[in-house]
Structures are given as structure tokens and as C-alpha cells.
């Protein structure tokens, strides 16, 4: 490993250690415990739940969907899945307050359903076009 990479790596360790020190000195034990739970839960949520659902979905899709639909379905999963996960806080409207009508004031669920329907329709159409053209990739 070159000196520059060691230097960069060392810088990374220093920055990270500073962050750890900030957390450890500015939050009490109970708060640190909750932060630790959140950190672990995030990894489990991705590595087990999200990754597991995607794996199962892909296996299922490969069995159920005819070949021409595989490519459009894959791209749809990337776009729809990413945008959906990002939108969880607004879709659930968890922060909404009855006294504040200027907050979370869009029809998120309806929009998301429309987005999902459009995505499904796009996959169906693109797959049908590919099937007619006789392409299998």
C-alpha cells in the first residue's frame, strides 16, 4: 500500500474516531444504547429484510415471469424500490399534526399508488413489445 493510501486511511480513522468521541461524550448511556440499537437495526433491516425480500422477489420473478419481462421488471424494481423506500416517512405521514395543515399536505399514498400502477403498466408494455419482437434478453 502506498504512503498516500496509508495517509488517507489514517485520516479516515481520525475522522471516525472524532465522531465516536462526539457521540460518547455528548449522549448519556441510555441514549448511546438507543443509538447502538438503531445502528444495528439498520444493518439487519438492510442485510436481512431488504436484501432477503429482493432475493426472494427476483427468484419468484424469474419463475413466474416469461423471459421478455425480466429486463423491464428488473429496472422497475430498481426505480420503484428505491423511490418507495425513500418515501416511507411521507407515505406513512408519521409526522403529521392536526394543528399544522402546511405539513405533509400532499396526497402521498394516492401518488404512490399511481406511480406503482404506471410502473406495472410500463413493465407489462415493455415486456409485451419485447416478446413480439422475439427478443429474449
Amino acid at each position: 500500500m502506498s504512503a498516500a493510501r496509508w495517509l488517507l486511511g489514517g485520516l479516515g480513522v481520525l475522522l471516525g474516531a472524532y465522531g465516536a468521541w462526539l457521540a460518547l461524550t455528548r449522549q448519556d448511556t441510555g441514549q448511546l444504547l438507543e443509538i447502538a440499537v438503531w445502528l444495528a437495526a439498520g444493518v439487519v433491516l438492510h442485510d436481512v429484510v431488504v436484501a432477503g425480500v429482493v432475493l426472494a422477489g427476483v427468484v419468484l420473478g424469474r419463475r413466474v415471469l416469461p423471459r421478455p419481462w425480466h429486463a423491464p421488471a428488473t429496472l422497475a424494481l430498481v426505480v420503484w424500490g428505491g423511490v418507495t423506500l425513500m418515501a416511507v416517512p411521507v407515505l406513512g405521514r408519521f409526522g403529521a399534526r392536526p394543528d399544522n395543515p402546511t405539513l405533509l399536505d400532499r396526497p402521498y399514498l394516492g401518488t404512490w399508488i399511481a406511480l406503482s400502477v404506471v410502473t406495472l403498466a410500463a413493465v407489462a408494455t415493455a415486456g409485451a413489445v419485447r416478446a413480439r419482437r422475439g427478443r429474449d434478453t
Partner: protein
Amino acid sequence: MRAPHPDDFTSRLRSPAVAARVGVWLGACFLICFATGLVSHWAQLPAPAIPFPTRPAWGYRVTQGLHVVTGCAAVPLMLVKLWAVYPRLFERVDLRAGRQALLVGLERASIGVLVAAAIFQLATGLANAAQWYPWSSFSFRTAHYALAWVAIGALVLHVAVKLPMIRAALGADVDDEALDRPGALRAGAVSRRALLRGTWAAAGIAVLATAGGTVPWLRQVSVLAVRTGEGPGGVPINKTAAAAGVLDTATDRGWALDVRVDGSVAARLTLADLRALPQHTVDLPIACVEGWSAQGRWSGVRVRDVVAAAGAAGGADVVVTSLQESGPFTRTVLPAAFVEDERTLLALDLAGEPLDLDHGFPVRVIAPNRPGVLQTKWVASLEVTT
């Protein structure tokens, strides 16, 4: 059932070629988030060593808007990035390899820290932007700030470790297989180029769907933004008078602004007194830490005029106290540079109408280039220490 092995993941799409290309953009998002986050932290320090600038007035609007929008774009990018490298999670560490095993173990641990901190930052940031606080004890500001350093540190370390691989992957054609895992032999459902285009599309949609919270001409497009941008006087509300518990005190006819100089009340100004002082109108944005912003036309009296009317010399910080009795921003420091700025007002009107109760009636602070949480509403007193 045995534990999964990297070779169980056979798709050629899960490759360094894809990971490096998505990683460049994800890294860029994290760097922008980190830099703009530091700006936001600096802006909120009560007594920064280097004073926060009052210009440009739209500065915080841009940096904090970027902060939240790049955080949104990072979600689909990170999902694809993690998907591309997922098989490596199941690589075995050969414990007989001694020093090598220790290095590999440390590297794996640093990846664990990076992933945990990155997910934490995106999850807590997105929730906070939607005013959702699903945690019970830790402070969002403290935790999000501390973990930002952890995430960026782990990211810098990760780049240092992977630099030769990143350079090789970016230097070769996207379809080159020289760097692939031995088990990655099956063609994916789409090409690598198509997967990357899909990823850019997802990130682009994430940006367009949320950026309207701060970019006015995207309002109609940003269907997933936390706000439409509507509100009294064309400005949304973060905290209502009811939520702040000031319904009675803010509407009390006996309300008057106390101006304290060196501990004693030097002036008590009623609403009529304030209206009798020279009135000024400024166009300034409210830009919140949650990433939304809105331009308003504010009218009222200059803070420096009020301070002078109380007989205090200029050039000092002013402590602004709200009628709101609890919360971290009930007492804020308005640094001297903002006090002296002619655009810093105690606003009485918004868009030509008296301030809405939820916008801080009877008076609120409006200053250029400041986070919304420091634009104190329902002002009770100003304190000058000379």
C-alpha cells in the same frame, strides 16, 4: 442448511464495475451531505469562533436544500451499491492467515461501521425532514452530527483501502470481467449499462420528487416533498402556536417587547410602539433544517433600531427569547453581525398582512442566511450585554 457463500450469487451485475460507478456518485452525495451538514452545524453554534456570514441571504437555503436532496438521492444509490457488493458479506475470513486475517477482519469491521453509520444517517435524516421522530431518547442533532463524522471517516478509510480496485474498475470498460468474482458467471436480466441507467433514473426521480420543497419551480413536480409550500402569506409553518403552547401569551393584549440592556429593562415596546418606529420591507427566505424553504416579503423594524431605541450601543450579540417556554430554541443568540445587518428585522407583517399567529405574531425575527430554527417566533424579549 449451510451459510450462503459468495459463489451462490452468480449474477455478473454484482460486480466491482457496477459498485465502483455507483460508489462514485454515492460518495459524492455523502461528501455534499457532510459539507452542507457542517455548514448547518456552524450556523447553529451559539458562539462560533468564526462568525457565520450574513451574505448571501440565500446561502443557507441552498446548502440545506442540497443537504436534504442529496440525502434523498443517496437512498436508491446506496441500495444498488449494497446489492452489487452483497455477496462479499458472506466471504469467510481464514483465521489461520495470522496478520492477514487481522487486516481483513479490520477492513470488514470498517465496512460494518460504514454501512451502519450510512443507513443511520439516511434513516434519521429522512425521518427528521418529515418531522417524524421515532426515536425515544437520543438527540437527533447530536447523534446525526456525531455519526456524520463516523460515516465520512469510514468512507474515507474505505476509499483508501479500495483505491486500486476503484481505479481498475473505473479504468476498464463497464462490461470487463477481469475484476469479477469467480462465481459471477451468469448474465443478468439487464446489461450493466442498463442497470446503471436505471440507478441514475431512480436517483434523478428521488431528486425531482423532493427538491420542490426548496426549488419553487419544481413544486408541481415534487409529489413526494414534505410540503406543498402553501401556508399563510405563502410560507409554510414548522411549529404552530398551539404546538408551542403560546396561544394565550401571544394574543395577550398586554404583550410588550422587553429590551434589556446589561440586565435591566431599558425599554418596553408595545405593538403600537413598534409600529411607530421606522418600518422596512425585505425579501428574505425562511430556510429550515428540514430542507424546505420559502421566500417571504417581511415588514417590520430593524433589530438594530430597536437596540438603539433602548439606548444600547451597537456591535454586541443580542439574546432573543421567545414566549415559547420549552424547547431548545426558546433562547437564541443573534450574533452581532446579524444585529448590525440592515436586513435583520423584527417582522410585524408578512406579504402585507399582519403576521399570522403560527408565523410568530406579534413579532418574529427574520434575518438573512440563517437556519429557520433561529428565526425566533413570538419574541418576548431582547437582551443586550454591552
